[in-house]
């Protein structure tokens, strides 16, 4: 009996093995037969993949690396770097370290690398640039004396006798740093190396992230309020009229961004057309002209105009697919036109609203040119700070960190969108 059971078991395993073997063979066959197809498909997309790789993935990776890269100070100040390796950060460094620093500064001055060191260190502790250049100048003029290097340096500037200066130098020595991310969040290291909040008059980025968020939300909302009726009209008009209206909607796409933004300046500035008209009509007095340009209002208005088509098009494509009989059905069931609209029409436009809002919001949150031109002081967005650090302050690490944070925010939004609405429901037109 047992033997029988055992035999059937073996038999079963055998057939199972055979089946598995057959399965494997089939899979291999399938793979062979589709290999050529796959190769062809790959060949077709290869140029695009290369393009994306070179123009998108690499720069993106570069940006992420840059946001944590600590810069070349360790290489450019090798002696000081070696001495500071075991420094405890609670007491001032020893004389040998001071000597190494003086040596390194003099070498860097000769090699013309002091600027690089100063630039990097100044991001860590504001004012170090002037300290270094001053020290380099004074050291070059100084005659040899019996005083210790420590005395000499502290004599040049008392900041060499402060822990904060030294811990700043120690912080830029490892290859990786969190400084730029901390700065992006208005945080900084104090003299003891602990993370603290920046004083309110120097804290700008968190507020600006919030402002960027608020402006983007405002733009999205205005686009929705202005775009929804237009999209609805587009979807119900007869084709000929709808086409004409569609051209009007798309017109902004066909004119240069600069031209459009400049037109808004001409319209909204203090002595612009709108203000002139209001004064002429007697609604405003000459002295009370409205400030509609070079502030947050101007930014929102100009951006809404530019991004409006991105709201209208997805809405239109969704509305076009909603059968008019739904509204008829709703009224025939006893709903007033308003109730029918709210309970039957509006929910069905949800994929369009979601797609349009996501599109507008994500485009808005990274907007740069328009706020730069019309934003004035209060309408600046985070991208303007990124550009500022790229072009003016040359703090590329901070620019990269701000950009990475922005990227993360957008990815989180995308993820939330996918969780709540579902990305497969997205309808872009």
């Amino acid at each position: 009996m047992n033997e029988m059971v055992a035999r059937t078991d073996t038999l079963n395993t055998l057939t199972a093995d055979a089946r598995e073997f057959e399965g494997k063979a089939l899979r291999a066959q399938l793979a062979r037969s589709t290999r050529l197809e796959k190769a062809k498909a790959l060949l077709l997309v290869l140029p695009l993949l290369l393009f994306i790789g070179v123009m998108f993935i690499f720069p993106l990776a570069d940006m992420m690396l840059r946001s944590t890269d600590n810069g070349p100070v360790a290489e450019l100040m090798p002696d000081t770097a070696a001495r500071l390796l075991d420094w405890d950060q609670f007491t001032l460094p020893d004389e040998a370290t001071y000597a190494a620093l003086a040596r390194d500064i003099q070498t860097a001055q000769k090699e013309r690398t002091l600027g690089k060191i100063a630039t990097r260190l100044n991001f860590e502790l504001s004012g170090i640039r002037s300290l270094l250049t001053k020290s380099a100048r004074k050291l070059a003029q100084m005659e040899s004396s019996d005083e210790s290097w420590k005395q000499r340096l502290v004599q040049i500037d008392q900041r060499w006798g402060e822990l904060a200066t030294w811990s700043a130098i120690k912080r830029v020595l490892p290859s990786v740093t969190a400084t730029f991310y901390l700065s992006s969040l208005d945080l900084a290291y104090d003299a003891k190396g602990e993370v603290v909040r920046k004083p309110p008059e120097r804290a700008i980025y968190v507020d600006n992230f919030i402002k960027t968020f608020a402006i983007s939300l405002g733009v999205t909302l205005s686009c929705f309020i202005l775009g929804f009726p237009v999209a609805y009209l587009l979807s119900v008009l007869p084709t000929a009229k709808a086409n004409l209206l569609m051209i009007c909607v798309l017109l902004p796409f066909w004119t240069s961004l600069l031209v459009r933004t400049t037109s808004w300046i001409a319209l909204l500035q203090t002595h612009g057309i709108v203000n002139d008209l209001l004064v002429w009509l007697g609604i405003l007095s000459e002295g009370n002209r409205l400030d509609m340009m070079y502030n947050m209002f101007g930014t929102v208005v100009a951006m809404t105009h530019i991004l409006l088509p991105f709201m209208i098009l997805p809405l239109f494509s969704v509305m076009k697919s909603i059968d008019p009989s739904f509204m008829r059905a709703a009224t025939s069931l006893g709903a007033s036109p308003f109730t029918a609209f709210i309970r039957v029409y509006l929910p069905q436009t949800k994929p369009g609203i979601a797609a349009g809002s996501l599109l507008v919001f994500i485009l808005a949150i990274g907007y740069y040119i328009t706020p730069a031109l019309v934003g004035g002081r209060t309408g600046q967005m985070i991208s303007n700070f990124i550009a500022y650090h790229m072009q003016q302050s040359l703090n590329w690490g901070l620019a990269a960190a701000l950009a990475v944070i922005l990227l993360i925010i957008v990815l989180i939004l995308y993820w939330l969108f996918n969780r709540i609405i579902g990305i497969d429901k997205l309808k872009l037109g």
Partner: protein
Amino acid sequence: MRKLIRFTSVMALGLSCTISIASAAERITVVSFGGAYTNAQKKGSHEPFMEKTGVQILSEDYNGGLGKLRAQVESGSVTWDVVDLETSDVIRACDEGLIDTIDVNDLEPGTDGSAAADDFMPTAVKKCGIGAIVWSTVFAYDKTKLATAPHSIADFFDTNKYPGKRGMKRSPKVNLEMALMADGVAATDVYKVLSTPEGQTRAFNKLAQIKDQLVWWKSGAQAPQLLADGEVVMTTAYNGRIYNAVKNESKSFVIVWDGQVMDIDYWAIPAGAPNKARAQEFLVFATAPEQLARQSKFISYGPPRKTAAAMVDESMKKHIPTAPVNLTNALAADAEFWADYEDELNERFTAWLAN
């Protein structure tokens, strides 16, 4: 990690560079600020140089700053041969090794035979750059729109006496100096005061008095535009831009020279410039007295060397910043100060602006 960064930068920038220098036979790229200023440089130096040497000059515009230059030098694919830099940028770029050193002995002597080192204003010869123009930030107003004419820099900050908006460059440079002068600091003491934390706070506080009335401009062309549009009643501006608007566009703008901040722009050669020999040749040519004098016919910026200044047209002389009549209360920008303090004052200014 740093290697990877360099590699990717080379990948991206190398691509654009191979395209742009593919056809470079005898051609140099000269980069400057564009507009009327570049036009004057073209007439003063580029065209005679091309005629003389047969080398083609490709003129490119930029908005100042070291961003692009640093990107080129770091990635090892430099396309610029000669670049026009502001003072603090010359010093910084030199410190960071982004531009090459220049030997003053290679320069053309003055028309009177004096050595170049003696002929140039002392501040116009830097380790890595040679002065091209003396320019100035002044403030200007439209005389058809202001009932009483302002005369001093203090008037610019006096919104009670002269109500209305002011235009200023979106940068701490010049603005802080003007603020201190308006607050009663003598021109000679401005940088001494500004090196102290108290002095900096004093300057920012003075600016804060008119913060709500300020409209910020970025490029030189915006300032006369703001004035013409009536957006502001007064604005700081580059003196050449206002001169241009008056001369070529018949605007009724008036320059107030009191409290002007003079500065120098320099020609410099990026480290690793593709045609270094020709670039050097151009730099020597463009800083020679004849070229500097010819250039000043077309824009009201003065030559930074004595023998060239002597050759400036009589009609132009009173419009350039260094004319004696304009120097009663004038400040020469301290490049060393700004090279040292630019980062921290920029940071403070940005935060001040945003809050």
